[in-house]
């Protein structure tokens, strides 16, 4: 007489443990890929922000240097007065040429005295919704304090 054996509830490849293991594996994979993609996006955004801020800082130093006041000295060349701006030299700056060398879309230079804005120049087009990075500097213009603002995008 044959004895009937009881059939297991789950047979073949499928089992409850395997299903849970698969679920955990899929969840872990999705979590890891989400973390990696968000870390990559964050570092890309951070790198762009850092490079833009440093660019605006260096651009402000360049403009302070190029538009700096000069005084007579020995020989052919004069000497630059650090931290002092010359309004004529600032107006004569070719901002478009500077912008093209940076590879950016937009740059602007503003000069403010205690009464308000006294100079503004811009080059390029500011894309809609683009982030603008500005650097503020202090300088003297004809003996008076002024704030130079250089922005890039």
């Amino acid at each position, binding site marked *: 007489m044959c004895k009937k054996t009881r059939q297991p509830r789950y047979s073949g490849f499928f089992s409850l443990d395997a299903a849970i293991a698969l679920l955990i594996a899929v969840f872990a994979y999705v979590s890891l890929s989400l973390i990696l993609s968000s870390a990559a996006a964050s570092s890309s955004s*951070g790198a762009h*922000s*850092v490079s833009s*801020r*440093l660019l*605006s*800082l260096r651009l*402000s*130093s360049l403009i302070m240097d190029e538009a700096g006041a000069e005084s007579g000295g020995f020989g052919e060349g004069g000497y630059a007065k*650090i*931290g*002092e701006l010359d309004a004529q030299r600032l107006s004569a700056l070719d901002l478009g040429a500077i912008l093209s060398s940076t590879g950016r879309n937009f740059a602007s230079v503003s000069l*403010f005295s*205690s009464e308000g804005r006294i100079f503004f120049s811009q080059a390029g087009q500011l894309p809609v919704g683009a982030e603008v990075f500005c*650097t*503020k*500097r*202090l*300088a*003297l213009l004809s*003996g008076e*304090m*002024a*704030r130079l603002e250089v922005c890039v995008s």
Partner: protein
Amino acid sequence: MSLPKKHSAGFLMSLEAAASLMLLAISLHALQLFEFDSGSEGAFYLCSDAALVLSKTNAFSSAELLQEKTSEAALLSGTCIFSETGSFSANTCGAAPEGKEVRAFSFPAWSMGKVATARVYCWERR
């Protein structure tokens, strides 16, 4: 004879959970190290400019002029500036709050007819 009582360790008390929490704490602390960019390089240059401008305008020659020029520099730069020599000082925002990042520059300047050590401190407004 009675069997020993079986202890059921809950998940929160398990060794794995403790290790996981420790790893999580380490990860959270490590995340702060990745914030390499504080964005304060512009403020450093701005304070350096303020020190240069104050020095060039002969602001340290008298207490009134120092207060006037310090206030003007603080207004234009949008930061808080405290400047001093050994004889007098000028302030624009009161004392710097606890934990605030303060940048300072020391340099020689003419003050009341003699060379003195001038100091300029800058920090961001609240």
